[in-house]
């Protein structure tokens, strides 16, 4: 149970452009256990989607370079797999749900056939059995009249229903890992709530490990067990859900949380934005990528990019604030003592529901 089914180790990905190689992922490491949800959070351009696509090896070969790193699925490095081995894993052991349900289904193919496609490639089921399984999958993801819907085309479904179908396709072969790349970003909130609940229920049933890629901290709080925060192609902090939300150790994580509105906070409490804009990946210097926007920048941050340091059994962070040479008075209280304890938050939550 406690075994890692996926280990991403020091992954680097660059894209070839007219102006030379642009790094998108710069030394990312994380692990995923069976049945757990790891959320990868970051802004657009932080490299979170590229990380996911490189696990599935969906990046265009002609302009992608993976100079370093390993992606181990059950101990075997997938980056060294042959095309055939990859195809055997993809869709059956690891599958993916994309952001846009409108474009991730083939518009000219019946839904049933699209679900059965993967089944017939990866399993020994007969056509009849595959159809039966497809029907079960539609039922499982909550599509009414699954039998008749098998013969419907994607345009006959609404956005939320399509995303259910996409999830059905992804889960048809009982994958051990599901990579969900912004699965609810294109959906309305009420539909998002439906899909998130569906994903949680299915995970419980099938014990799938989920890598959830999102920019929405609300979705993270709703779904994740552990969180990796990405900035400029690096994981700047990772930890358990509570560690990240209540004891963030990186100023970027803290900044993200502070800039998020809280539904029950008063309007008078101002939002604290992170100043500046995300860095241009082709113009990253050697220092900490967040130094330009960080309120606690020190001289060292401009020239030296810190390595990761463990803060607990489960939490690691890349920030100079945690170096012993940093003057104690410079570390903000929210990082030193935590934003608030989980107990405090629980008490507060109780106050709201009461």
């Amino acid at each position, binding site marked *: 149970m406690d075994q*890692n089914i996926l*280990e991403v*180790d020091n992954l680097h990905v660059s894209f070839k452009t007219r102006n030379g190689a642009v790094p998108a992922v710069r*030394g990312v*490491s994380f*692990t995923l256990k069976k049945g757990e949800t790891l959320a990868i959070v970051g802004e657009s351009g932080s490299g979170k989607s590229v990380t996911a696509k490189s696990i599935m090896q969906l990046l265009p070969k002609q302009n992608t370079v993976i100079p370093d790193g390993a992606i181990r699925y059950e101990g075997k490095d997938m980056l060294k797999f042959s095309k055939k081995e990859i195809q055997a894993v993809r869709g059956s052991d690891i599958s993916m749900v994309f952001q846009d349900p409108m474009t991730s289904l083939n518009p000219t193919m019946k839904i049933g056939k699209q679900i059965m496609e993967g089944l017939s490639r990866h399993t020994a089921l007969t056509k009849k059995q595959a159809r039966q399984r497809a029907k079960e999958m539609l039922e499982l993801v909550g599509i009414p009249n699954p039998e008749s819907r098998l013969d419907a085309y994607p345009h006959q479904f609404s956005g939320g229903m399509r995303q259910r179908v996409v999830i059905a396709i992804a889960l048809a072969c009982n994958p051990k890992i599901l990579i969900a790349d912004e699965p609810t970003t294109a959906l309305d909130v009420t539909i998002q709530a439906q899909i998130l609940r569906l994903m949680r229920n299915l995970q419980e049933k099938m014990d799938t490990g989920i890598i959830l890629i999102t920019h929405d901290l609300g979705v993270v709080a709703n779904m994740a067990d552990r969180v990796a925060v990405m900035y400029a192609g690096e994981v700047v902090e990772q930890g358990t859900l509570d560690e990240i939300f209540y004891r963030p150790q990186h100023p970027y994580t803290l900044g993200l949380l502070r800039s998020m509105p809280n539904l029950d906070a008063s309007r008078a409490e101002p939002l604290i934005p992170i*100043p*500046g*804009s995300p860095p*241009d990946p082709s*113009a990253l*210097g*050697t*220092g900490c990528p967040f*130094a*330009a*926007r*960080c*309120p*606690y*920048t*020190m*001289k*060292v*941050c*401009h*020239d*030296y*990019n*810190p*390595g*990761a*340091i*463990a803060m607990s*059994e*489960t939490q*690691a962070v*890349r920030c*100079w604030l*945690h*170096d012993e*040479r*940093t*003057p104690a008075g*410079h570390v903000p209280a929210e990082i030193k003592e935590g934003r608030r304890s989980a107990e405090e938050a629980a008490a507060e939550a109780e106050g709201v529901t009461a």
Partner: protein
Amino acid sequence: MTMMFPKDGDLKAGLRRADGLPAEPAADLFTPEPLAESVREELAKPAPTFWKEARERLFKNKGAVISLAVLLILSIMAIVGPSMNEFTYREQHIPHSNLPPKIGGLEWLGFNGKDVAGTDVYAERGIETNYWFGTDEFGRDLWTRVWKGTQISLFIALVAAALDLIIGVIYGGISAYYGGRIDNVMQRIIEILTGIPNLIVIILFILILEPGIRSIILAMIITGWVGMARVVRGQMLQLKGQEFVLASRTLGASDSRLLRKHLLPNVMGPIIVTVMFTIPTAIFFEAFLSFIGLGLQAPLASLGVLIEDGYDAIRSFPYKLLIPAVVISLVMISFNLLADGLRDALDPKMRK
């Protein structure tokens, strides 16, 4: 979580630094130094503008650059070529008829004044002057005629393309910009026009107006502008709903300002590409009309007329066909390659 989780002190392991700095940051660097507000909003080096970037991309495309050079040379020849020797394109000199090409110094290239049988016609007839591209059956200098023909072909193509451009942009622009019923009616007209085989239209047209440069141009543009109108309409429809156009409308911009400042500059790319593809089509069409005898009348020459003349004598005097055919092929290939290059350079999907 065991093997790759950083242990205490790993701060140094993943550390990156600028070249020439000590491996370990000095303790005195741990002093607060946040960036000033103004620096945060600083932009990177100025990025090239759209046109500059397109130009750069075009010049990186070898085929397009060579084509551009070839076209330049051909155009210059089309202008100065006819006056490079003492002959005119219409002056007949029967004693000098059907002479093969001869250029002093280029005999090894086939410009040796010998006919298909291998006899030196110049020596045989005792002719002193060299005809560089030979002569036709009336003794007219083919060098002069070929370049005059190129000039006329290019002229017809450019004028036709320019008129297509004007009509197409205006028609497509009005159709897309005003939309609704106007668009509906205008599109039906286009459909009717394209519904009639345009060869028939053109042939009828030329039969009514007598053959000549003007009637050929008219015949070509009567249906030729439709393609341009469609391209412009499609692009404009897309642009019309863009938020920057709406923004300008809420600022109260007039129709002409919207078209001039917002819509046209953003369809320039596709317009240029379409024009570049129209030109070789027009050249080909003119040649085709001349070839079937509906083109220019003697003694005027276009590349099509020359090819048609040469075709009749392909066995005994192959140079009469070969030279204009090579020129027209060069023109067509170059225009097509250049248009391809422009399309790649201007395609907005390639940007970013």
